[in-house]
């Protein structure tokens, strides 16, 4: 049923099986079903319940991965440490190191991450060479990653409208904001030079519009920088998780 993508049916039967017969197998299959369902928290919960069975190592690896996806990194590290480090099965050891390196990288603990990453020898198993290269690239990317300051964005926008958005890396929004501010500033100046009075209705209308757009430009830059920071953080996080996932994909075959 799982291989035929009948996930709901699979869960139904698993829930109605007698748990005393093969509890570990049932928990493993439940964990695997939730994994296919993309529910990492439930999946990790059932994988972590598998004990004293030939499925245990596999379950610990998948529990660690799913806890990482569920953003419970301390739990993920705990289960990654439980994976046996026997030298006979080099593949398990490599996966363990990748999981730990990825988890520490997600926590910005660069020394620990580097320690596990350097201890991997990808020459032993050619399957993991791509994962090793990607993880190293992500390590460098995460290490160099610096959050942009929303307040600097605001300050820049106060001097040149739209420049804060340019600082956030949003060229189109910056151009749009600059043009809108220039238009309303132009209208306001023209209204003033025509009437030479602050009581002119045209000046009041366009002056107000310019004020709104100028203030909006400053506030918008603050939010644009914040959004861009969040988006880049999320992107790197997803890339790290995907690399960890590709390291573990071989054990599911």
């Amino acid at each position, binding site marked *: 049923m799982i291989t035929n993508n009948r996930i709901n049916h699979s869960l139904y039967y698993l829930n109605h099986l007698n748990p005393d017969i093969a509890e570990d197998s049932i928990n493993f299959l439940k964990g695997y079903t939730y994994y296919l369902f993309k529910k990492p928290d439930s999946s990790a919960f059932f994988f972590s319940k598998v004990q004293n069975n030939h499925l245990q190592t596999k379950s610990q690896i998948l529990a660690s991965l799913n806890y990482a996806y569920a953003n419970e990194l301390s739990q993920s590290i705990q289960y990654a440490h439980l994976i046996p480090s026997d030298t006979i099965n080099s593949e398990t050891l490599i996966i363990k190191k990748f999981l730990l390196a990825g988890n520490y990288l997600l926590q910005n603990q660069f020394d620990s991450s580097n320690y596990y990453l350097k201890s991997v020898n990808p020459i032993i198993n050619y399957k993991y060479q791509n994962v090793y290269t990607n993880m190293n690239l992500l390590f460098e990317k995460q290490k160099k990653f610096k959050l942009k300051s929303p307040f600097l964005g605001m300050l820049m926008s106060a001097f040149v409208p739209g420049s804060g958005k340019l600082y956030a890396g949003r060229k189109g*929004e910056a151009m749009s904001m600059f*043009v809108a501010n220039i238009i309303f500033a*132009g209208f306001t100046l023209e209204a003033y030079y025509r009437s030479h009075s602050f009581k002119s209705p045209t000046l009041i209308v366009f002056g107000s519009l310019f004020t*709104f*757009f100028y203030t909006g430009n400053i506030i918008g830059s603050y939010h644009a920088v914040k959004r*861009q920071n969040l988006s880049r953080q999320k992107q790197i996080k997803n890339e790290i998780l995907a690399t960890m996932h590709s390291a573990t994909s071989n054990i599911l075959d």
Partner: protein
Amino acid sequence: MPSLSVSNIIVFFILLTFDISYSQQSDLELIESKNIVIKEFETTRKVTYLFKDNNWIIKYNPVSVLFGGLLYVYQKYISIQIAANCPYEVSCSAFSKQCIQRYGLLYGIPLTADRLTRCTRLASFDLIRGVEYNSRTNKIYDPPEQYNLFQK
């Protein structure tokens, strides 16, 4: 030859910058679908006055009446005529109403101005990277809640 005044240049830029969407259907298709479109629009969209639930001082003071009235007229009569098709999940006018209701006029209006400059052809350069899409509606997810200054 007409002189190049600031007004002419500015009007040219307005026409260049701001986008008024138009339907790509033929006239015949428009006539055929007219009844259905209006019926659906009227049943799904209820336009209300911005300060409907506030006390009478807020409800009827000139500033509220001006902003609330303009938004009401736009939503009720203008947006339906120009076939406005905002790429955002909460449309610009609804975003403006929600921002003003949530944060007040002083913070809500600049947020509206910012959103209007993001809803142009020029800003569409940035619509690919770093924005969240709603996969069901194919619109950009941009709710007013995320503009709270005190939210981490």
